[in-house]
């Protein structure tokens, strides 16, 4: 048996229930049942102008095709619905409430101007298949976004349509596959570092490639010697995240690109951490052939509780002809979409999804870019890196930095050696952070660092908020070292719920409410 991955503990300590609960801050907080438990089966919260349609409300020509039994779902009046969802919202943490230090996730402020603009009728109320003559403004948005992205990355082309970072990775590898196949060179392997985000190997496998891992050096970088040894005529692409998942810039990135190209492979860069270098470094200058950009990270479209995101992929000149359809072209002073793999798009590898990608996210990201400008985006990278290094400096006296020498980029990585002998785990420490008012950092990722704690503050935190966060963590760390185990083992004590039993959820999956409940 090979244990593929070992992460965090998933069931709380059996003794935990006995730990005292001192719930505070719960005044005016309501327990909220599921909508299925509100006894709203017979009504609806939407009014219909029934009279207008009365004579024609007739499904006679659908005989035999209609539902056998009425659709049983609850309908809430507007006041009930508003109250239900507002109450539920209050059980969430959000970037609007406090620093949200999830490393590699980039939780930064989401400008409300971007929300306002994305809701203009000329954008939100636009059908993807309207005649091109009626959507010139939308195509200009796509064209302008492409211009900003290609200029910032120093790459000649961009495929806008991927709907998330992982979708962008897939798009990049499909494009690379098409480029190899066009030469009759069917390569079968993709190399990715052990520290890579799980999407890299998952994407490569989905794209039909065998994944071979590249090792990492003791100081958190790609092992060049191992890379060189594994490169060969069967390698289609090398996937490297830069800055990497340890929060470090790959110093040898240009050499990685050179070696990759010398082996006839393409260099795919996972651009999840582009926010650390935007405006200061252009991936095109590093030898990158393809890189996805998470608009929801670097360009701050809201995360929305897990999506929707957007993952445009910038491409080198050698890959551009193989990009997925559709893309925007200039045709005699007008803009148009090339939607099929004919003519100029003959070599296109296909289509990533039904329409043109995440237009709602394009508008938000473009508004964000225009607001910051070339100068502001450079400042974004500088402040993101400054804030992370400030946290690293302030916490390093007590917590153990995984790579203490030299600066980090946009996130500070700690391991759990500083907790040795305390009987407190990374998970315990993270959960105790909730009780002092902060969302935990990313934990147990990257897998190459034991008990990893990855902190990414982003550039939109004030110094006061950073200090509040550091003070809270230093106080917690002191308690941990002083042996105050009870404060950690049962944490959180003051959240809407205590620790949840993930084992039970997985053993007896209950994914929908049923009427017997």
């Amino acid at each position, binding site marked *: 048996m090979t244990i593929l*991955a070992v992460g965090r503990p998933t069931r709380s300590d059996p003794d935990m*229930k006995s730990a005292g609960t001192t719930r505070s801050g719960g005044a005016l907080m309501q327990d909220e049942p599921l909508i299925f438990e509100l006894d709203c089966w017979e009504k*609806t919260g939407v009014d*219909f102008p029934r009279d207008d*349609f009365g004579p024609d*409300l007739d*499904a006679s020509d659908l005989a035999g095709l209609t539902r056998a039994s*009425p*659709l049983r*779902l609850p*309908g*809430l009046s507007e006041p009930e*619905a*508003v109250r239900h*969802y507002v109450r539920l*919202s209050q*059980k969430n943490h959000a970037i609007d409430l406090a620093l949200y230090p999830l490393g590699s996730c980039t939780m930064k402020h989401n400008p409300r101007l971007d929300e306002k*603009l994305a809701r203009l009728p*000329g954008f939100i109320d636009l*059908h993807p298949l309207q005649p091109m003559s009626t959507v010139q*403004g*939308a195509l*200009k948005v796509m064209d302008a976004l492409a211009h*900003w992205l290609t*200029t910032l990355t120093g790459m000649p082309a961009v495929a806008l349509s991927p*709907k*998330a970072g992982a*979708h962008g990775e*897939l798009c990049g590898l499909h494009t690379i596959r098409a480029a190899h196949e066009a030469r009759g060179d069917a390569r079968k392997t993709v190399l990715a570092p052990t520290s890579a985000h*799980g999407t890299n190997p*998952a*994407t490569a*496998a*989905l*794209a039909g490639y065998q994944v071979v891992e590249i090792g990492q050096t003791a100081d958190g970088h790609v092992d060049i010697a191992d890379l060189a040894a594994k490169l060969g005529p069967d390698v289609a692409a090398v996937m490297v995240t830069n800055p990497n998942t340890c929060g*470090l810039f790959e110093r040898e990135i*240009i050499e990685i690109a050179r070696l990759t190209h010398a082996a006839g492979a393409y260099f795919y860069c996972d651009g999840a951490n582009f926010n650390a270098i935007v405006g*200061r470094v252009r991936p095109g200058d590093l030898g990158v052939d393809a890189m996805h950009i998470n608009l929801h990270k670097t360009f701050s479209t809201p*995360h*929305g*509780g*897990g*999506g*929707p995101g957007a993952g445009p992929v910038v491409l080198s000149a050698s890959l551009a002809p193989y990009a997925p359809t559709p893309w925007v072209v200039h045709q005699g002073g007008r803009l148009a979409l090339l939607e099929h793999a*004919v003519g100029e798009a003959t070599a296109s590898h*296909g289509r990533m999804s039904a329409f*043109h990608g995440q237009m709602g996210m394009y508008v938000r990201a*473009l508004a964000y870019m225009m607001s910051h400008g*070339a*100068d*502001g985006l450079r400042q974004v990278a500088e402040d993101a*890196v*400054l804030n992370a*290094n400030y946290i690293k400096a302030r916490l390093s006296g007590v917590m153990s930095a995984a790579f203490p020498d030299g600066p980090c980029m946009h996130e500070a990585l700690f391991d759990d050696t500083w907790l040795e002998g305390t009987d407190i785990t990374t998970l315990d420490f993270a959960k105790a952070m*909730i009780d002092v008012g902060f969302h935990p950092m990313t934990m147990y990722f990257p897998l190459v660092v034991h008990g990893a704690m990855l902190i990414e503050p982003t550039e939109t935190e004030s*110094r006061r908020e950073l200090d509040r966060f550091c003070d809270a963590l230093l106080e917690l760390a002191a308690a941990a070292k002083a042996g105050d185990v009870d404060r950690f083992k049962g944490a959180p004590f003051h959240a809407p719920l205590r620790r949840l039993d993930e084992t*039970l*959820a*997985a053993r007896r999956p209950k*994914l929908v409410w049923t009427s017997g409940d």
Partner: protein
Amino acid sequence: MRYLPLTNTDRADMLAVIGAAGIDDLFTDVPVSARLSTPVDLPFHAGELAVERALGALAGENRAAGAGPFFCGAGAYRHHVPASVDHLIQRSEFLTSYTPYQPEIAQGTLQTLFEFQTQVAALTGLPVANASMYDGSTACAEAVMMAARVTRRKKAVLSGGLHPHYVEATYTLAHSAGVDTRRLAAAIDAEAAVIEAIDADTACVVVQTPNVFGTVTDVTAVAAAAHAAGALLVVVTTEAVSFGLLKSPGEMGADIAVAEGQSIGNGLNFGGPYVGLFACREALTRQMPGRLCGETVDAEGRRGFVLTLSTREQHIRRDKATSNICTNSGLCALAFTIHMSLLGGVGLTTLAEHNHARARALRAALATVRGMDVLTPRFFNEIAVRLPKSATQVVDALAGRNILAGVSFARLDPGAGMDDVLILCATETTTDEDIAALIDALEMEFGA
């Protein structure tokens, strides 16, 4: 810069704490040759007013769907969304939260996902559903990949009524993964034709109802034929409102149902973001792609919700994951859930009846236009018609009169030899005046 809180004094003080002489000291790992010494060649920062003017002007260059008669469907639908939906999804705690990795402080998101999954299961008539996919087309592609995993077979048969963009998105994903997709010739009313193409290597057949031409089909016989051959039936629906009236995929024997959920709670958005619905039989649960939310209890025995069965996913399985997906379409799924919670089963059924009624009015009017044939035999809210000339030309000509007449099938599938086929959609937003304007314009166009 209004989004950056640090002052130059803060920056200097923080550099001192770090022990760095300047910001460049923090970028020393970047190769010297790759360091940009000046900002890139793009405009400098701009105030809210300037950005709003610039993007507002671009929005103004578009003809919004609501700005006149509008009959476009074919995978994206214009419906009225209650004002409270957009208000609620803009709550900070929903809009600006992350994937619910820390369930103790994300019960808002998790409980709404559980409600979403339950609603999707009820709508599709299947026992389990996931927490959503990017959109209907990628959900369709993932369903084919899932069927290949379940059956350990490598061939999928796609009906001639499946939306051509869904066909392409499915081919793109399946092709590189070594799954062979065979799409039958485009046909108005031939979902059952997939039965003839089923063989011992077939992992699944994919049918759509209502299909891209609007045709509603009872695919119960397709299910029986697929199952007899050890294959799965995937049923695709692009118009989620139809679930309020029509027989559900589960009732017809589907193993996997996928749908575009945009119609409920979400705007047209020029194609995205949308929300893919994905439901299946219980026995297939562990082969599903995407996020799943499940019920459990906390340390004090209180009910709560967590992301579950995550060993299927990329962060644990890596190259053996069921999919590379690591998000859902969270906020769009929330909008879907809230709108669906307002509608309820009663409201969705009424809404579906109104859509059908409007489409009947449209069909009756179209039938009066000389030289035009209504092709769709059984419809919900979409109708395909044959025009006496190129549908693309007609659409362009009517756009010049501020009428968006629908979608030319040739735009979706230029190689099908169906250049004269136009697909029109009517929803509760379609008025009698809209239909009258369309008919007048068509008659003028055909010189009646």
